């Protein structure tokens, strides 16, 4: 998802009798749906995993602004421009809510930034794909924010208080993102044949990368059990992916678009769509840094960070001077 493949640094889930009294009390609180707050005792691995997960989630929100920011100046109407700008601004807000949640665990904002820029921390694979046409703004809102919602709604109940509260804020804002994307798609498919073709092309390119957002298949997802016991992951990757496919296919049909999967078929028995898995080798390559836009995305982030340094320092210097003047007065 926005946090894919987050390592817990543990080997499976330990039995209750292997836990220390502190750990057992901690697990009992989680099992009783009592929120863990920053000053509460927590196992070191829980803290570390959460920093990784929330950090990765925050980075995804921030890097996720880039593929859409790419189209702000070229939106087809003033209204679409204002909408896209508001959406991208929301994503900045999401990043800020999440960075603050991560910081309550004892990592600083600058550390988080440095880890993103050095490649030590990741962001979602989806943002390493290019946005080539205006229809991509439709596909991203509809599919990428749609997939994000699938994952974020259950995370509102996650065990760590600051993370859960950030998720509540974020979920309130996501629905607008998905609907504005679908609305772009509706305009495109009712336009000229060339515009409809653009919409289909955008769906073709974003379908499998969107499926990858949920992370590897459950059988290859080694850290899931511990994360689920800690309630920092609420559903398995395959569960959420299936839910996403079930919801999205009828939406594509409404648009008159075809999901690029010849094996997609409604399964009467299971009550689910059967569908093809994405290319997991491609997923691994993108995570490793070899997707179509990895270098460009990270480059843009580093440029913004380094280029903004004089400005951040200037404001800090001004604040320091003004404080001194107040003391003197």
């Amino acid at each position, binding site marked *: 998802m926005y946090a894919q493949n987050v390592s817990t640094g543990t080997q499976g889930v330990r039995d209750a009798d292997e836990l220390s009294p502190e750990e057992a009390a901690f697990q009992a609180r989680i099992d009783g749906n009592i929120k863990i*707050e920053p*000053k*509460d*005792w927590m196992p070191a691995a829980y803290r570390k995993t959460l920093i990784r997960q929330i950090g990765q989630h925050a980075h995804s929100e921030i890097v996720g602004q880039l593929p859409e920011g790419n189209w702000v100046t070229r939106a087809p109407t003033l209204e679409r421009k204002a909408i896209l700008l*508001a959406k991208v*601004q*929301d994503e900045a*807000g999401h990043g*800020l*809510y999440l960075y*603050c949640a991560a*910081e309550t665990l004892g990592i*600083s*904002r*600058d550390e988080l930034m440095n880890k993103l820029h050095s490649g030590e921390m990741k962001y979602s694979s989806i943002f390493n794909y290019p946005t080539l046409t205006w229809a991509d703004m439709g596909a991203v809102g509809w599919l990428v924010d749609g997939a994000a919602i699938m994952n974020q709604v259950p995370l509102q109940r996650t065990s760590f208080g600051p993370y859960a*509260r*950030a998720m509540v*804020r974020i979920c309130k*804002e996501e629905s607008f993102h998905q609907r504005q994307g679908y609305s772009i798609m509706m305009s495109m498919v009712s336009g000229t044949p060339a515009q409809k073709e653009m919409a289909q092309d955008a769906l073709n390119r974003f379908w499998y990368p969107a499926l990858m957002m949920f992370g590897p298949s459950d059988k290859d997802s080694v850290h899931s059990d511990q994360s689920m016991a800690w309630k920092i992951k609420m559903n398995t990757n395959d569960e959420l992916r299936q839910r996403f496919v079930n919801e999205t296919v009828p939406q594509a049909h409404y648009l008159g678009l075809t999901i690029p999967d010849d094996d997609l078929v409604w399964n009467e028995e299971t009550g689910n769509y059967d569908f093809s898995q994405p290319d997991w080798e491609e997923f691994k390559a993108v995570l490793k840094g070899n997707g179509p836009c990895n270098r460009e995305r990270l480059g843009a982030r580093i440029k913004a960070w380094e280029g903004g340094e004089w400005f*951040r*320092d200037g*404001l*800090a210097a*001004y*604040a320091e001077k*003004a*404080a001194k003047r107040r003391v003197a007065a």
Partner: protein
Amino acid sequence: MANEWPLWEIFIRGQHGLNHRHVGSLHAPDAEMAINNARDVYTRRKEGVSIWVARSTEITASTPSDKGPMFDPAEDKIYRHPTFYNIPDEVGNM
């Protein structure tokens, strides 16, 4: 890093005249910028009519391990609630 902006806690009063409520935090060089940033981060959809900001380091919190001694004494004082008292129906609404 030495130059990291300090952290501020943000409190917002919503439309309906309720108390300021803690909504989250953000980094800013000074109080004025903290308010400006809070406007953009926490009130993009008219969530508030007033903003307070306070340096996070200026907030003193109760410690979680004191939770018992701090809050348990209120537990057995049910006579502090109106429902503790049985008032006959004939008396009417009270």
